[in-house]
Structures are given as structure tokens and as C-alpha cells.
């Protein structure tokens, strides 16, 4: 059963416009069974929109998404049956008790009475809500409400769990607890979780999708991503001179990791990658001057990923 290579969520060229504004554009990815996928991006990057399309709350403008093989538009009810969803604002009926609320959520998901009774007790136990099972939800603190939200999401043992910023707005200790709780669900559930907190992703997720301005910027394992980002700095230069000589001379500069030629014509445009902090601009200029080549352009390139990461890390410092 637990075939980890079969995709349970397939998203293909998903696009959603709000009027003329593209919230997400051509997003494609797959998630395998039992995987925890992180959705990382600054606010308004399109995380919530993607999740709302996946959960069948709103239809995409174009493209398709499948949950366990069921299209979220054409076979919406079947797809929805397989999803547990925790929206960004935890949806709770404040005037109901925790137990009544969970029971109601079970009923509208078509759970039998027996199944409901068993699962309500289980999730109350797992989410450590025992003391508050009969309290009115309106009287609970933010952290406990979050747990009730998670409890309803996992109640019907869904194949897919979708959680929109599950750790936002709760205190640091509860953040850690919530993360551990979510981690514990990995394996049996496939989880998509969105966040704009960078460290959270590496702590919880096995794979990360970075989206920015509605587009997928990168999909990778968190370790690989950080490596790719931390390691390098890029400079683009245009140098007039014999290509082979220029290439080898550039490669010989200490600190340079890789040199690639971008342009095909006589004018040589090169992309130089180096370890961060090497500051090669001056050395390149000196080199070109000594060899009597022509230096036409020298431009440090901000990697777009890095830019996003910078924004992510600076807007919300690690809270744990």
C-alpha cells in the first residue's frame, strides 16, 4: 500500500486569475504518498490560492489538479472526501464544545457513528485536548484552537492533509508542539503545508516548493536548496578577447568555482560563480586590464532565489 513513489497529488499547469490579476500562474508539481511538502513563499505569493484550488474551494482558471486520481473540479466531492484542510484562519464554531464540533465535522464528511466515536476520542488524545473536550471553543486560547483545527483536519483519516500556515500566531512553545504534531502525521498522511518561515521548512518538510509572485521558483529538498543558496555568488561579465583564453584565465582566479559562456557571438558574455564573499570584481578587472582585453560590462547578479530567501528570513526571524 505505502508505495512512496506513486504521486497522490498531481498539479498540472494550474493558473488562477482574480479578475486580471494572476494569483498563480502555471504551477505544476506532484507529491508522493506519505511525503511532507512545504510551500514556502512571502505573503501574497499564491500559497493560499493554490491550497484553495486543491481543496475544491475555488476552481482554477486553467490547468488541473488531482487528488488520489480525482480531479478537484470534475470529481470534486470524491477529491474533497480525501482531504483534511486547515485554512489560515482556523474555522471553528465558537459556540460549540470541542467534542460536538469534531462530531459535526465527522458527520458532514460522511463518517459512520462508530467510526466517529472512535476517531473523536483518538484525535482528542493525539492533539492533547482531553481537558478541554467539553469546553466551548470560544473559551479556548489561540494555541488550543489551533489544535482543534488540526484535530478536525485529521479526523476522517484523510489521505491528504493541507494546512495553511499552521503555526502562525501561536506562542513559541506551542509552535514547537504543533510542528512535532504535524511531523508525526507524515508517513500515514501526505501533507502539504504552507509557511513563510524559512527554518520551519527545514525542520518539518522533506521537500520544498518555493513560490514567488504566483510562480514556482524552485522545488527541491531543503538541504539541497540551502546549499545551492548559501554557496554561491554570481557575476556576469562581457569581455572582448579570445574566448578560450578568457575562459581559462577566469577559471584560474582563486575562488572561482565555475565559468560558463552565455553568448554565442564574438562578444564574450560569461557567467562566473564563486564562493560567497570572494568579491571577484576587482580581480577580474585587473586581469582584463593586464591582458589588454576589453571589459565591457561587469555585473553582480542577485540570484532570484536568494532574494526571496532574504526576504523570507528578514521578515520573520526564527521564533524558536
Amino acid at each position, binding site marked *: 500500500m505505502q508505495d512512496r513513489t506513486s504521486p497522490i497529488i498531481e498539479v498540472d499547469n494550474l493558473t488562477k486569475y482574480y479578475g486580471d490579476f494572476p494569483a498563480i500562474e502555471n504551477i505544476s508539481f506532484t507529491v508522493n504518498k506519505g511525503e511532507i511538502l512545504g510551500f514556502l513563499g512571502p505573503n501574497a505569493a499564491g500559497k493560499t490560492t493554490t491550497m484553495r484550488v486543491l481543496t475544491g474551494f475555488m476552481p482554477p482558471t486553467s490547468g488541473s489538479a488531482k487528488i488520489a486520481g480525482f480531479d478537484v473540479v470534475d470529481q470534486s*466531492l470524491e477529491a474533497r472526501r480525501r482531504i483534511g484542510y486547515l485554512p489560515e484562519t482556523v474555522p471553528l464554531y465558537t459556540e460549540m464544545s470541542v467534542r460536538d464540533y469534531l462530531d*459535526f465535522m465527522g*458527520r458532514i464528511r460522511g463518517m459512520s457513528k462508530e467510526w466517529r466515536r472512535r476517531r473523536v476520542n483518538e484525535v482528542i488524545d493525539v492533539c492533547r485536548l482531553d481537558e478541554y473536550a467539553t469546553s466551548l471553543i470560544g473559551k479556548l486560547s489561540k494555541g488550543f484552537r489551533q489544535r482543534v483545527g488540526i484535530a478536525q483536519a485529521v479526523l476522517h483519516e484523510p489521505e491528504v492533509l493541507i494546512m495553511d500556515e499552521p503555526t502562525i500566531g501561536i506562542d513559541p512553545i506551542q509552535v514547537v508542539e504543533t510542528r512535532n504534531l504535524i511531523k508525526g502525521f507524515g508517513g500515514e498522511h501526505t501533507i502539504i503545508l504552507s509557511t513563510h518561515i524559512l527554518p520551519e521548512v527545514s525542520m518539518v518538510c522533506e521537500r520544498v516548493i518555493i513560490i514567488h509572485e504566483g510562480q514556482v521558483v524552485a522545488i527541491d529538498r531543503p538541504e539541497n536548496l540551502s546549499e545551492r543558496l548559501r554557496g554561491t555568488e554570481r557575476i556576469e561579465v562581457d569581455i572582448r578577447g579570445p574566448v578560450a583564453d578568457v575562459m581559462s584565465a577566469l577559471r584560474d582566479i582563486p575562488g572561482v568555482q565555475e565559468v560558463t559562456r552565455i553568448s554565442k557571438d564574438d562578444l564574450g558574455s560569461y557567467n562566473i560563480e564563486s564562493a560567497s564573499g570572494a568579491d571577484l570584481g576587482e580581480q577580474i578587472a585587473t586581469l582584463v586590464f593586464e591582458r589588454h582585453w576589453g571589459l565591457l560590462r561587469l555585473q553582480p547578479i542577485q540570484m532570484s532565489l536568494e532574494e526571496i530567501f532574504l526576504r523570507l528570513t528578514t521578515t520573520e526571524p526564527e521564533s524558536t
Partner: protein
Amino acid sequence: MKNIVAIAWKEIKTYFVSPMAYVIMAVYSVLASYYFVTSISGVLPEASVRGYILPSTLLFVLLSPIITMRLIAEEQKLGTLELLMTSPVRDYEIVLGKFVAASASLVSILIPTAYLVLLLHWFGTPDIGPILSGYLGLTLFGMATISVGLLASSLSGNQIVSAVVAMGILLILSIIDLASSYVTGVFSDIVLEISISNHFQNFARGIIDTHDIVFYVVFITFMLFLTVRSLESRRWR
């Protein structure tokens, strides 16, 4: 069907644990009793329920929106609408569940008035027919007001706004038949035909006309249809 029952049951439970249920019931009972007393205190008192059944339409116009205002507007505010709409529940099941619950809530406020009927039996010999038709008409009228209230609640995330909108629509639909004396021909027929209170008159007199029943059924169905559409439109916004 199971989903409709689940949603209706949840709403009914929520309604009856709130103080609102009993406040509305008390207000209605007091007013109905007052109308009853004035109607039997004349020179030639009549052992009928018309005295409070007729003005009840106005009370329903004012009270129904209070019952329905939170039904969808509050779900939207709490964010639970998103949860409902991403559960394996069809939009019409949400609307029907809430309609059933609100109708039950409204009918429940009629229950205390049973003592007025008992009083009539105690002290007089009322004709049971008009009493039953009066209550049947009031129930249909009440369900019509509920359907308008539900539509208004789906239009706005603000409960007060939805209550005021519902009262406005219901008042217009109740008094529009008065305009029939000022317009002629087909317009006169139209205003009489779309008036929710005009169709109630026969019931109060003890006449059950299928024409009136059909009107209420069509009216309610249409309003619920619009509510489902309004809910669906949220997905596209």
C-alpha cells in the same frame, strides 16, 4: 440527505442553546397574547385565532431575519464556510440544512401559542378548521420569510446588514398589495400575486386554496435556488 440532517441538527442545537431562541419565543408569545386579548375583548367576541394569526405576519417579517441573519453570514465571518465548502457536501445541502433548521426554529415560536387555542376550547366552541388553516398558512408564510432571510444572509458577511436587507425585502413584499388600488389592469394583478401577505389572507379566513400553497412553494424554492447560486458564486470570486 445525511448531510442536510447533520447541518440542520447542528443549527437547531446551536439555536436552542442560545438565549436568542427564548427571547424571540417570549417576545412573540407576549405580542400574540396581547393581540388575542384585544380580539376577544370586544362586544361580540369571536372564538377564533384570527386576532393574533393576522398580525403575526408582521411579527414574522421582523423576527425571521433575526433568526436567519447569522446562518451564512456568521459562517463567512468565522471562516467555517470555507470548511463547509471544502467538505464533501454539496452547496444545496448546506442551504437546505440551514433552511430546515431555521424553519423549525420559527415554527417553535408558535408552540407556546397553543395555550391560546386551549383557552378558546375552554371558554367557547371554536371552529377547528380555521385554526388549523391559520397555523398552516402561518407556517408557510414563515418559511417564505426564512427563505428570504437566508438569501440575505448569503449576500453579506455582516449579520446586521443581512437582517436589515431581509426586513426591507419582506416589508416590501408584504405591503406591495396595497399598491393594487393605485395601478390598473395587469399591474394590479401582478402586485397582488407577488405579495406574500395577500396569499396569506385565505388561510386566515379558513380557506386552503392550492393556488396559495403553490405560490409559497414556488416562492420558497426560488429563494433557496438564489441562495445556492449566491453561495456558489463565492467560489468564482
